[in-house]
């Protein structure tokens, strides 16, 4: 059934499927509304920002985060679908990391929410591998030739989160203030944190 249909067709198809699944008691419509509400309003990149800020102020936490991302992130209460096996990669003066999913859109939902449209688009998926520095430049991230760029391919079993470098001049800031500097893109590697 290769419907590539038009307009309202998708809405009709999902309505038909949902009503069948509800009837067969395979899903609960109330739980469905709750999960949508959760991802629309509660789960997003602010979760990841808290993880990053904690790693910046707490060296022990940073160590745990790099050793076992999933467990360290769960310490802050963030876990669930697409967050089961997390690897945190650290940016340093020598290495810049960026994350892509070359096949579809594997992405760490519990820490970053759902992926932005460009992450799901073919140009990013394909070009990040062929020309990562060019893609980064389009995002306004200039990586000097002396810095190695590492591209990580997320998949259904493993998802990556970038631990960006703490911006200069933030020594006196609280964890909360630091978290406010952490952008979504800085945790995908297509951006850097905001300046202090």
């Amino acid at each position, binding site marked *: 059934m290769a419907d590539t249909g038009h307009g309202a067709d998708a809405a009709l*198809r999902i*309505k038909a*499927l949902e009503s*069948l*699944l509800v009837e067969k008691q*395979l899903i609960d419509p109330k739980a469905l509304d709750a999960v*949508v509400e959760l*991802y629309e309003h509660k789960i997003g990149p602010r979760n990841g920002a808290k993880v990053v800020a904690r790693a910046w102020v707490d060296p022990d936490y940073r160590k745990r985060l790099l050793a076992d991302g999933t467990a360290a992130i769960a310490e802050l209460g963030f876990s669930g679908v697409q967050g089961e096996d997390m690897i945190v990669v650290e940016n340093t003066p020598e290495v810049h990391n960026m994350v892509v999913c070359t096949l579809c859109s594997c992405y760490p939902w519990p820490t970053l929410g759902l992926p932005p449209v460009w992450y799901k688009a073919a140009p990013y998926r394909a070009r990040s591998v062929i020309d990562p520095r060019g893609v980064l430049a389009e995002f306004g991230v200039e990586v000097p030739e002396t810095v190695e760029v590492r591209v990580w391919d997320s998949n259904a*079993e493993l998802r990556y989160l970038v631990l960006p470098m703490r911006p200069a001049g933030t020594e006196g800031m609280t964890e909360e203030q630091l978290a406010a500097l952490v952008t979504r893109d800085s945790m995908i590697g297509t951006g850097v944190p905001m300046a202090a």
Partner: protein
Amino acid sequence: MTPDADPTFREPWEAQAFGIVVKLHEAGAFTWTEWAEALSGEIRAAQQAGDPDTGETYYRHWLAALESLVRRKGLVSDAELRTRRLEVAANAARHQHQARRTPLAIG
């Protein structure tokens, strides 16, 4: 590629399709690897069929992957799905894209 935030779902059906996948997975209907394979398969097929694959059509692929996975897992049959679609279409309120001066229905 614009680095700025965009809405999570552009239309309500996208949110429904998303939620169904999450809940079915949580209920053990399929593994996440099976889901990722279904989704990337749809994306690849659409790309080969000329879809620009800009991310705008993403949830269409998501929906197609969901339909094919529930059929393969035997949760819903092809026939059931076809029949139900016709029923839903027949019962849908006629939506007219013009300003109405009278109520759509009076109960």
